[in-house]
Every structure is written in C-alpha cells, then in structure tokens.
C-alpha cells in the first residue's frame, strides 16, 4: 500500500541515510531542511513499493551530483532537480510516472523527496546503490542492463544539458562530471529512464523505508537507554541486508586524506581503548575496506560506517577527526549487489583494491 512520508519521518530517514552513506554522500541536513519546507507548505510525498509500480510506467532516477561541501554553501533554488526531470521528459517525449532515488545513502536520500513533493509524483521505495557510491555507473540499474542515458543535468541558474552516451554508463559519468564542475561543482540530474518492470528487476527494493527504520531504531534505542548498535543489528537481520555488527569500538588515532581525480582518498585508523587492537579504514569518499593486521574485516560493496560510540550518530569521512570515540559498524549487502556482474562494477577491483571480495558475514571478526 502506498504510504506518505511525513515531517516527523524526515529526521529519522536522514539519520538512517547517513548510516547507509558509509561515510560519503554528504550530510543529509540541508536536504532535510529542503524537504521539510515542502511538507510545511502542504505538499505531500507518496512512497510506492516496487511492486506497486506498473510494468509500463516510466520511472527516472533523481539525484544531485558533485561535492556535498558545495551544497552547504550554494543551496539550491529548489527548481533544479525538477527542471532536470522536465528536461528529460521533453527529450523522451513522455511524462514520468514515478521517480526513484539514485542512492539511498547521504544527502541523495533527500533530493528525490524534494522532486516528489514539488512535481507531485510518487517516489519508489528502492534505489540503485543500496548505499552511497561515488560514480553514476555504479548503480544496479546499469549492472542489470538499463542505460543511464539520456541524462538531464541542471544547475541553479536553470541551465540544462542532456548527455546521451548510449549504453556506455561510464562515459556518461565522465562527461556529466565535467559538466558538473563547470556548473559550479554541483548539479542536479535525472537519469536511467526505465519501465516499472525494469525497476522491479534492477532496483534494490525497500531501501528508503529501511533507512527510515534504521534511523528510527537508533533514536528509539537512545530514548529508551538501550544499545543502539544491538537495535541496528536486529533491524538489519530482518531486512534484505541480512546482518550488521560492530567491528571495533575505539578512538580515531589517525586520519589521512588527500584529494585526487576528484575524490577524497585516505585512511583512518581506529584503536581500541586499551591500545591493543587497531583497525584501518581505507576510503574513497565512502569507506571501502576495513583491515586488522593486514586481514580484511569487511570490504566494498558491503557497508562500513563509523558511528559515534555513544549516540550512534553516523560520522562522514570529511568530519572524521583525531580523538573521536567511535564504533566501526559493518553491514552485509543484499544478494542483488553481490552477483559477479555487480561486483565487476562496484566490487573491490572497481576501486583498485587488491583484496578479493568476501562476504562480511564469512569473515572472522577480531
């Protein structure tokens, strides 16, 4: 049954989305404000399950692209993602029936909600990443045969462009990235036009409502003075993700970041309070792999998030700093993200890592 996303849901959804952002994807706070304003003005957001989309419906993925740090300064006009959608509709000669988030992690959990509220069309409960990833080809839509093109891109001045690279989603990412830089470091996109049937075949289902549930369970555990991490693990066991567990509790003792090829790459080391055990996280915007004495504890596309040890508030890689008391939390990914074709697009080797992929639940913990 279609459900409405309400004003009281939003902070929980933002918290859960930050968790699924695995350190990247940007702080959902600005998005939270944007969507809250729409709902206060009386607009509504209807969430459809993937089963509720009709086979022949036209569904389009919606997102912002670029640096989240730019968004906190150059706040959108609010029209950009809708204009991107309208531009794509014009190109396709068809009206879009529903939108779907490109990624459920971070700030991009919120942008499609803004579109849904403003354009008055429903949003599908699911996405193409199941977390946050840095590039547009890293979506299950593309992994399972949907072309990202044509993609419509819009900036805050209302300037638009459409890029069509046929079925080459990686080239689409490359060109769109260049345009985004010229647009001031951030743009708003509509991409992966597909049918309802294709959504059902290629999307990771239920991720928006999962983000909402995870965010809510962190808050409720805190309010009831229970362990939010246990609550998260229980909630994940009841989801298609399957499991979640704390890899290590400790303090951040080292953070090293460098900027290359448009990404923030680096490592962070968390040491247990007794100083005996250390886990090193390697990130490229998002956390990619957790090592202990050279041994892999969890690796992409499985999710690795760093949360405040007390409050379980997710901490982005950009705000990681020496001395924070944290827990490293790892989550398994749904089966749709673990197939050979999925791993080829966003598995360890797609990020240049040498370690082979092993499911987090099969790796021994410390």
């Amino acid at each position, binding site marked *: 049954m279609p459900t409405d996303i309400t004003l009281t849901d939003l902070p929980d959804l933002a918290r859960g989305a930050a968790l699924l952002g695995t350190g990247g994807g940007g702080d959902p706070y600005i998005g939270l404000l944007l969507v809250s304003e729409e709902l206060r003005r009386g607009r509504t957001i209807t969430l459809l399950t993937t089963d509720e989309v009709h086979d022949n419906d036209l569904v389009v993925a919606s997102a912002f692209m670029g640096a989240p740090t730019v968004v906190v300064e150059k706040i959108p006009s609010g029209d950009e993602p809708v204009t991107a959608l309208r531009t794509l509709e014009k190109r396709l000669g068809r009206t879009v029936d529903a939108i779907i988030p490109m990624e459920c992690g971070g700030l991009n959990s919120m942008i499609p909600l803004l579109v849904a509220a403003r354009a008055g069309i429903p949003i599908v409960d699911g996405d193409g990443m199941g977390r946050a990833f840095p590039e547009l080809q890293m979506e299950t839509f593309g992994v399972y045969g949907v072309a990202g093109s044509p993609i419509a891109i819009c900036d805050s001045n209302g300037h638009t462009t459409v890029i069509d690279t046929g079925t080459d989603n990686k080239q689409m990412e490359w060109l769109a990235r260049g345009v985004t830089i010229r647009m001031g470091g951030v743009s708003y996109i509509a991409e992966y036009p597909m049918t309802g049937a294709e959504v059902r075949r290629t999307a990771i289902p239920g991720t928006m409502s999962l983000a909402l549930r995870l965010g809510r369970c962190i808050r409720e555990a805190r309010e009831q003075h229970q362990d939010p991490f246990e609550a998260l693990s229980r909630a994940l066991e009841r989801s298609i993700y399957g499991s979640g567990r704390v890899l290590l509790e400790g303090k951040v003792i080292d953070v090293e970041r460098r900027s290359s090829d448009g*990404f923030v790459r680096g490592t962070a080391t968390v040491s247990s309070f007794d100083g005996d055990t250390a886990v090193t996280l390697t990130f490229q915007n998002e956390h990619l792999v957790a090592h202990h004495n050279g041994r892999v504890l969890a690796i992409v596309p499985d999710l690795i998030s760093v949360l405040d040890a007390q409050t379980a508030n997710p901490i982005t890689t950009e705000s990681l700093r020496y*001395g924070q008391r944290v827990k490293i939390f790892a989550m398994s990914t749904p089966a749709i993200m673990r197939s050979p074709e999925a791993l080829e697009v966003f598995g360890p080797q797609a990020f240049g890592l040498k370690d082979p992929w092993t499911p987090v639940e099969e790796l021994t913990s410390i």
Partner: protein
Amino acid sequence: MRIGIDVGGTNTDAVLMDARRVLAEVKTSTTPDVTSGIVTAIAELRKASPFDPLDVQAVMIGTTHFINAIVEANRLAPTAAVRLGLPATRALPPLVGWPDHLVAAIKGEGYLCHGGNEYDGRLISHLDRDEIKRVADDIALKGIRSIAVSSVYSPANPELEVEVGDILSEHIPGVAVSLSHELGRMGLLERENATVINACLRELAGHICDGLSGALTDAGIRAPLFLSQNDGTLMDVDFARRYPVATFASGPTNSMRGAAFLSGLGDCAVIDVGGTTSDIGILQNGFPREATTEVSVSGIRTNFRMPDVLSIGIGGGSRVRLGEPTVGPDSVGYRIRQEGLVFGGDTLTATDIAVAAGIAEIGDPDLVAHLDRSLVDAVLAHMSREIASAVDRMRTSATPLPVVAVGGGNILVPDVLEGSGKVHRPEHSGVANAIGAAIAQVGGEVDRIFAVASGTRETVLDAAKQEAVDRAVAAGARPQTVQIVEVEEVPLAYLPGNVTRIRVKAVGDLVFEPALTDTGARRAH
C-alpha cells in the same frame, strides 16, 4: 597591571594581576545593570590591594550578556537579512528553521537578491544595484535598524558583501550592517544565522559597551577595555560593538584558560564547578578544544567557534536525594545561601554534603552533623563517578590527561579521579574565569578554499599560515609571540584539481603598550 572581570549570571568575579601575579581577587553579585556590579568589583579590588587606577594597563571583561539576550529573546533590535545568491539558495530563505518567537522578537525580514560566487570565484549572477536599493527602501520603510548581509562563498570572496554593505549604509542613514564573511565559516545557513544574531545584538552591544566604558571612566581607569571571545582571544570594545556574537561562549573559555594559566598545564581536562552545572572542557596547547559540530543557540543552528564543553548537572547548589543517591540536575542556584542546610535552609545540596564530609568549610557544620556518614560518603562517591565518567567521555587519547578543578564549587571534585589520577586544584581556582579574561590572547584565523596544484601543498600551507599570523598581529598580538595553534585541511570531495579547504589559526600575547588604542588595532579587520 591588568584587571580581569567575569560577569556571570550570579557572580561577578574580578582579579587584579601584575604580569603573571594575582594581586587581588574578589567575588561580588552580578547586578541587573551590570555597570554598578563592575564598579563595586573594582572598588573591592582597590580595597583588597590598593592601586592607582592610572596604573591599570588593560581591563578584560568576559560577559554572558549577549547570549542571555538571545536565550531570553529580550532587547533585540529589528533586523533584516539580505542574502546574495539568486537564483540559487531560493529554496531555503533567510531565517529558515528559526523558532517563531525569535523571528518575532527581531521582527525578522529576509530578502533574497542576485549575486554570490561559485566555489571557484566565478559569479553565480551579477549584482543588481537597483535591486539592492529597492531592498534598502523597504528596510527603511519598515523601520529596521540593523542588517545582516550574506553572500554565497563570501568567506572566499568577500567583495560583494562589502559592496552591498556600503550601498545599504549609504541609503539608510545610521543603519548597522553586519557582514557574514567576518563572522562565520563555510556553510551558508549557519554563517547567515550567526550574522543575523550578531545584527540583532548590535544596539544592545552599544549600550553594554557604553556602560562598561562608563564604569571604567567612573573608576578613574583610562586603560583600554577588551572583551573575551569564544576562542579565548580578545577583542577591543569597538570591535565588540560590531561583533557582539563573538562573546557568546566566553564564560567556559575563560575558566579553561584561567585553569591552564594557574596550573601551568597546556594540555589537560578542566572541570569548572558552578552552582548548577559542572562544565568539562579540554585544553590543547593552552586553548579550548572547539566543537566541530554545528552549535545550536536557542534552537538556531550556527557554526560559531565554540569550545567543546560537556555540562553535567552537578554544582554547589545541586539538590541531593539520599538512598540510591542522586545529585541534580535541579539546583537551588543563587538561593543556596537561603535554602542550603548549612545556611539554615531545608534543602539538602551538594554543598551540604561537602561540609558534612569535612571537605568544605562554609556555613554552619552543626546543621549537617546529623547526616549519616555512610550516606554522605555514598553521595560523594556518586558525584565522583559521574564527574570521572564525564571527563573520560571528553578525553581523546588513551594517555592519561591531567585534570584541573576550578570554579566556586571545585571542592566537589575529589582529590583523585578514577582514570585521571590526582586532581590539580591551583591557588585562586575559584576565580579562574576572571583570570582567564585577564590573560587572554589575540588571534587570527584563515578558513578558505584553496586550489592546491600538485607539489604546491607546502607553499599554499605556508601562505595560509602567514596570513593567519598577519591577522593576529593586525589584531594586536606581539609578533614575536605569535604561533600557529591549529592547521586543518579538508579536500573537497568529488572535484578534481585538489580543491582544499584550509583552516589555520594563529595566536599571540597582547601588546600592552598604552599606544594600543591609538593604533586602531582590531579595527582593521
């Protein structure tokens, strides 16, 4: 010699210092008009250690006045927020997310105009001077007397804010203009909010600064007056008139800086025990560790430079319940001298427990002699555990951190704290906040986005550091004493070309030459 004064909600503490020596310390009651309380404090200082007012070289005051005005939504000026950024930023206009009562209290009006910059300095849109003039007319018509101007990416490109500030000043005679790039960091909404808060405090700041200056003149003091800022550095009184918001968290900062001075420790945890709470902060290189997350003031999200302080509800006036003992968070506060048991009242407070245990001598110990010693010990142990656990939460490394206890109620902190060892309780620790005001330094900060081409990182960092040093010197620091206390680099994600946000802070000792007021220090901001 110098005078340091801390004007708190309950007490006004003052110290007279000669270089590093504390010559006199007094505690008086804060008065509603502030001025008479300060006059009294200075008179008490002269009684305690006679001095010629003309020998005073500087007076440093820390005050909670401005933050209280916001918390109480009282005495705030009608304020307009003018933002440059159209067509961007329209989705979230100025004052978004503000509590309704505060918007009403400042009769807040928001205006969106063209202008603003991209991350790389290009214009989002051209400034429309006629549009600004129309806004100025509307502001004048509404009788608004203070304006906050913000512009997208102004911390990197301040020119548009300056230009618009000039146009507004020209069109609305006597209007006060606050520019966001002078007040906040990256993050448009938080910086704009800080600017609006500053703007609505400008009139009050004028009154308070007049009052403070008047109090000094009445006391025969000719020395320059400085106010403490959130980060432990100083601003002169003319700067304070324009940037009152910079005083917001000076209370805890002064306590921590005073603790560092008195104990000689640059890296330590400081517990400031007041009447209602204990505030725990961390000193790094002698300066308070700043909060990295956004700080909410009365429900308004800001990005002020604020110390990272953890407050727990244990203070001298905290109400104590026996049995499974609890302490606070409710407190009798300044009514302790009526309501505490040792003063003949009928409320059991943390102070009564300290007297009953024989660790404090205040009031009449006979009035708490009936308390069961094992219950008293249980309460002490409880407080000790709570404080130890709070200190532990603030600690950032496994190495033990020394702990310094200050404030009027510092006796509540045990001599040995679990996980931290012996607690330092230096002389004069009861007035550490006033001492912190007296010994404050001046600082300069750079926080901007830099393009760091391959192989140029060191050059870029050096340039940023030099700029911070120059700013500290311009703000009145003695050049030989200026040192870099903080360097932070955050690469901007998803963008090629190594675009990096670099934040550098430099601080130094204040020049004490009498010529200071003539040089216009800190006016060249």
